[in-house]
């Protein structure tokens, strides 16, 4: 008969692991919200500290910063949402007409497709049914609740950051604090750098989209520009959405305008990928495209759109942690001497010294 012997320590570790898995399964939504709040804290902490150094009380600094950000987001949403509802209503009412225009346009290139009939057969009642409205309503309610929770958690973390810092440092043995400090700074640089870089790239695509749509004469250019800035946050898929939406809007004017917008947006994506992103992020997110793709797919599979959004900062954070662990392992193999060189064994040194 198979007999398994286990130490109390092993049993305790297995029990703790099981508890951790159970807690993760039960509380993953809260853990996720907390992770997002930590990311925002890392991005906003330098600005809070800047205000605190200028004698603004910490709580007031945090509230000021968060209200300013929420006001900007609310203002931009107020620009986008009504315009998008108008665009959707227009698309729903005139879809067969647009389909006919596209048919005629494609016919010029010898491509024959039956689109108008299909457009007439679209069952809008099913798409915008009562159940769909309830589903969308639930999703919107959940999103609003999540934004509120993340804002409150970020505010608490920012206000309590000195206490949090003391708590973390209590677990570090004396003399190792500078290493923890460097590690936390590296994490903050990566996560904060990601958010700041994302803001810059979003701003850039929004301005470019606005200029192109104004030049081409597409309706609601500001709304589409803001939307392009928002969806640019989503890695890989965001670029596609940012291209498709203004192209569809331009197509409602004419196919030629749509082609101009499409070409401009594709050119911009090339500019962003090859020129802007490497310069804005630099070494902050020096990740290969394959790693980004795998991270985004895994994030999407695990946590949906939230996972996609968290994929890049999570991978970049993981890289900092792995680099730190490898550095520590390397130090264990070759502990540095007073001059940074590996130490010679004590006995050999003594013998050599005494021999001279």
């Amino acid at each position, binding site marked *: 008969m198979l007999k398994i012997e286990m130490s109390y320590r092993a049993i305790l570790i297995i029990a703790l692991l099981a508890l951790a898995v159970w807690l993760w399964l039960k509380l993953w939504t809260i853990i996720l919200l907390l992770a997002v709040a930590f990311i925002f804290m890392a991005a906003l902490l330098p600005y809070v500290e800047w205000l605190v*150094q200028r004698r603004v009380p910490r709580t007031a600094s945090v509230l000021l910063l968060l209200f300013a950000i929420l006001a900007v987001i609310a203002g931009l949403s107020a620009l986008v949402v009504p315009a998008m509802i108008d665009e959707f209503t227009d698309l729903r009412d005139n879809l067969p007409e647009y389909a006919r225009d596209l048919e005629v346009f494609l016919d010029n290139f010898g491509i024959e497709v039956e689109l108008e009939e299909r457009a007439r057969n679209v069952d809008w009642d099913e798409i915008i049914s009562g159940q769909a409205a309830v589903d969308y309503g639930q999703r919107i309610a959940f999103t609003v609740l999540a934004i509120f929770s993340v804002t409150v958690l970020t505010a608490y973390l920012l206000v309590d950051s000195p206490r949090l810092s003391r708590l973390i*440092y209590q677990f570090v043995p004396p003399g190792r604090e500078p*290493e923890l400090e460097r590690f936390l700074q590296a994490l903050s640089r990566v996560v904060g750098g990601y958010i700041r870089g994302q803001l810059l790239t979003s701003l850039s695509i929004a301005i470019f989209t606005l200029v192109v749509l104004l030049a081409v004469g597409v309706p609601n250019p500001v709304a589409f520009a803001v939307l392009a800035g928002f969806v640019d946050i989503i890695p890989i898929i965001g670029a596609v959405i940012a291209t498709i939406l203004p192209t569809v809007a331009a197509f409602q004017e004419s196919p030629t305008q749509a082609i101009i917008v499409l070409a401009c947006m594709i050119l911009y994506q090339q500019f962003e990928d090859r020129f802007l992103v490497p310069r804005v992020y630099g070494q902050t997110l020096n990740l290969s495209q394959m790693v980004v793709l795998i991270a985004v797919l895994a994030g999407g599979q695990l946590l949906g759109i939230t996972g996609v959004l968290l994929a890049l900062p999570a991978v970049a954070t993981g890289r900092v942690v792995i680099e730190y662990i490898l550095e520590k392992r390397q130090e264990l193999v070759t502990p*540095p001497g007073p001059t940074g060189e590996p130490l010679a064994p004590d006995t050999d040194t*003594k013998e050599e*010294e005494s021999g001279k």
Partner: protein
Amino acid sequence: MENERGVGKCEETHLGSYGYPSRPEEPYQFCPQCGKAMVWACPSCDTPLPDDSAELEAALFCRQCGAAYFPSAGVDNKGVTSRQVV
């Protein structure tokens, strides 16, 4: 204003620090573990001790001037204590 921070050690290689959260604000004179004198900077040129823990533990001499951190312990600048040399 950023507060001053530093790491140090005693002759028995007990490490210490000051200025970090939950640590003393000022450098302290004696090791709380063995009571020997703490060193926070080179006694000769005042260069702070290395802030990498592995290097801090191993360091016996100053990188900048080569002076021993614990001259009273009989450490010469060959990298070993004179007591150890037979």
